Structure formats: structure tokens, C-alpha cells
């Protein structure tokens, strides 16, 4: 990965709990993108699905960060912000979406109609602003160690969810996180949320994939 491959580009990164809690993905991903020369606005909202970014939705925790600055965490007063408001405020060249686990219906039947409606509503809303978008799919989990697999994340379902997103996020570019590691390779705390080493590896792999998108340097508005 050549240095400063993303210089001059502004990124808005939104996501679920992976982007919301201390020592999770927000820090390493925004650090890596910043090292590539991008201006990065990151916003996380615990448990938020795609549709939750089309209205202000209260969530149990969240965080935001500009570049490699201090992470500002939110507790019970956290909420999502409508994606169009975020795009209008931050004026990104690229929106990066880190959503998958919150929509995979782990431990129960997959809600396909709901997932399709939510995903397509968000991608259409972003497309209406003529902003390039990149959707990062869910990574593998593991058995969860001491805390067990709290979310019931299984390899079959995460593969199904990844395939579903790959087929449905266009015109966003899909990044398949399952290619970054083997199942159970990155240890988790609870079957889904990684230790810091896993998040660092995931953030680095996401950044590499973004840098490798063929037209990424041409998206400057």
C-alpha cells in the first residue's frame, strides 16, 4: 500500500457497534485512512441497522471522531443521524458503511424482506447525493471464549449475510470482510466483537481494499 493513496479525499464512515466502543474498529480504521491522506469523519451507533441511518434513532451507545483526533463517546443519549444530514455536513467524497452483524438475524430466521428494504433504502439515499459509497460486510466470528457466543453468530449465517449484501448493496462497492481472515482466526470477546488485534487487522484490510478500488482517486467532488 503506497503512502497517502487517498490524499485529498474526504471519507464519512458510519457503522454499528464495531465502530462505537473503546478499542474497537473506529480508531484503527480512521487512523489507517488518515495515514493514507484522507480526511475521515467516523460515526458509530451500537446496534444500528441500515434503516436507522434514515432517521434519528436512539441507540444505547455511540461515538464519533474526526481524523485521528480524540474519540467522543456517547452513552444513553446516543442516536443516529440521517445520512443526508451527515453528508451535507461533512461533504464526503466517499461514504463507508460498516453494517452487517446488526442485520443478520443471528439465532433466528433471516428477515430477508426487511433486510432488502433497509439496505436498498440506504444505498438509494446515498446515491441520490451522487456520493461514492463502499459497504464493508461482516467478518467471521468465533466461539466467544469466556463470554460465549452471545449473539449466536454462526459461520453459515455470516456467509449468507455476506452473500446477501454482495448482491444488494450496488451501486455501493462491496468489500467482503470474510476474505480477510479464516473463521475464528481473529479472537473475539463475545463471538462477534474482536480484541484490539482483530480490529487492527480488520481496519488495515479495509483500508487496503479501499485503496485498491480502481476509481477511488477519481471520486473527488
Amino acid at each position, binding site marked *: 500500500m503506497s503512502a497517502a493513496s487517498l490524499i485529498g479525499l474526504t471519507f464519512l464512515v458510519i457503522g454499528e457497534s464495531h465502530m462505537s466502543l473503546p478499542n474497537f474498529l473506529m480508531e484503527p480504521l480512521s487512523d489507517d485512512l488518515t495515514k493514507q491522506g484522507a480526511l475521515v469523519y467516523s460515526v458509530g451507533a451500537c446496534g444500528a441497522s441500515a434503516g436507522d441511518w434514515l432517521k434519528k434513532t436512539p441507540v444505547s451507545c455511540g461515538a464519533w471522531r474526526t481524523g485521528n483526533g480524540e474519540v467522543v463517546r456517547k452513552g444513553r443519549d446516543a442516536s443516529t443521524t440521517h445520512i443526508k444530514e451527515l453528508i451535507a455536513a461533512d461533504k464526503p467524497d466517499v461514504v463507508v458503511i460498516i453494517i452487517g452483524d446488526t442485520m443478520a438475524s443471528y439465532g433466528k430466521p433471516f*428477515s*430477508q424482506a426487511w433486510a432488502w428494504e433497509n439496505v436498498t433504502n440506504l444505498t438509494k439515499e446515498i446515491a441520490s447525493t451522487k456520493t461514492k459509497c463502499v459497504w464493508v460486510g461482516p467478518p467471521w466470528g468465533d466461539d466467544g471464549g469466556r463470554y460465549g457466543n452471545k449473539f449466536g453468530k454462526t459461520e453459515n449465517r455470516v456467509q449468507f449475510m455476506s452473500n446477501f449484501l454482495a448482491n444488494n448493496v450496488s*451501486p455501493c462497492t462491496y468489500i467482503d470482510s470474510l476474505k480477510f481472515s479464516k473463521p475464528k482466526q481473529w479472537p473475539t470477546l463475545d463471538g462477534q466483537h474482536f480484541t484490539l488485534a482483530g480490529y487492527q487487522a480488520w481496519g488495515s484490510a479495509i483500508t487496503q481494499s479501499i485503496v485498491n478500488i480502481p476509481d477511488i482517486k477519481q471520486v473527488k467532488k
Partner: protein
Amino acid sequence: MKLNKIYAYVIAVTTSSVGCLTHAADINLYPTGPSQDSAFVRFINGTDTSLSVTAGGSKAKVVLDANQPASKYYPVNTKGSITGEFSDGKVSSPISLNVKPSEFATVVALANGSNLKQVIVKEQPDDFNALKSSLALYNLSSAGCTSAGLLVVDRSVSLFEKVQSGALQRRLINPVSLSVQLTCNTKPTGKVLDLGLLQAGQRYSIFAVPTADSPRIFFATDTIAR
């Protein structure tokens, strides 16, 4: 490694581990997906005259005519009946149906002499795909076309075959420009219908309905109301 550095290392690892464990215990259990899937219902005017659809609860009204014979799909609650009424200003036809999670229900009003009748067709699609177009043929033409199909004009390609009366078939196709013609029992029937340029990710329906002469087809984009 000097002893004080080893202690520092052990303390750092222990602190980090405790932090992680405490932190893991603090991670809330968020729902991954809803408690049950979404469900939708739409209304189609398969007659030759203008109809209105009035919702049972809100009394909201939608007019369906030759220019817009199909309503949008409305999200519905699956725990109760959906009620309403078709009306042409002279006669009415009460609507009542139940829809299950994941179902997309289509309620079609058809002429029945001077009265109205209804056909309800439900599907549970699993072909969602933003890179392709999804096209369905609904055969509602009753005895006039017991086995319907759809030909791509000028290409001698059959998109659908043997769609039984009261049923539908759906498939993914490439997003291209298409003109199609209905077939009844393999025989081309009625006028050619120009679908224009289909869009990737968009879902479409073609309805074959009876007329006084031979069945006709019309085309609708499957849009979800927001």
C-alpha cells in the same frame, strides 16, 4: 528483560486483560434483525374503469386508473387483518386479508359482470439482487388464458411459460430494454407491450387480466411506500 520491566509488562497485560473482560461484560446484546420479517400489500385495478381503494382503518384513499393501475406496496402489520374496499363509485368490494411475515401480497380487483371480484396472490421472494432486474408475470386472466407465457418480441425468447391462472412466476433478468407479448396456451395474444429500459435492482410485475375480447397485459414497477 530486567525485573522491573517484567513486572511492568505483567501489570500492563493484566490491566489490559481485565479491561477487555470488563468491557466484554459491558457489551449490550443488541438485536440482530427484527423479531419478525416485514410484510407488504398492494392493490391492482384489473378492470377497464377507474377504481378507488379505501383503507379500513385510516380511510386513506388511492385512485387506480389506466395511467396508474397499481398502488405501491404498503408495509403492514401481520398480527391482524388488513381491511378496505375497492369501489368504482357504483359498486364496491370489501377487502379483507391476512399477510404473513416475508409475504408480498397483491390484491387485484377484476370485473365480474357489473360487479367486482378479487384475486389475492402472495409471494415470498428470495431473489433480491441490486445487479439484476426482477420481473414477474401474474396470470389473472381466468378462463381466457389458463396457461400464460411471455415472449420477448423480435428475439424469439420466452421469459415465462405455463403460468397457471391465479398464479405468478418471477425471475431475474439483465437490465435491458424489452418489448414483450403475452402467450395463452403458447399462442401470442394481444398487443406488444414496451417495458422500456429496465433498471438494475428494480422489481417489476406484468399483469395479464381478462377483457371482453382477449386477455391484455399491463406493467407496474414494484415500489415500496415509505
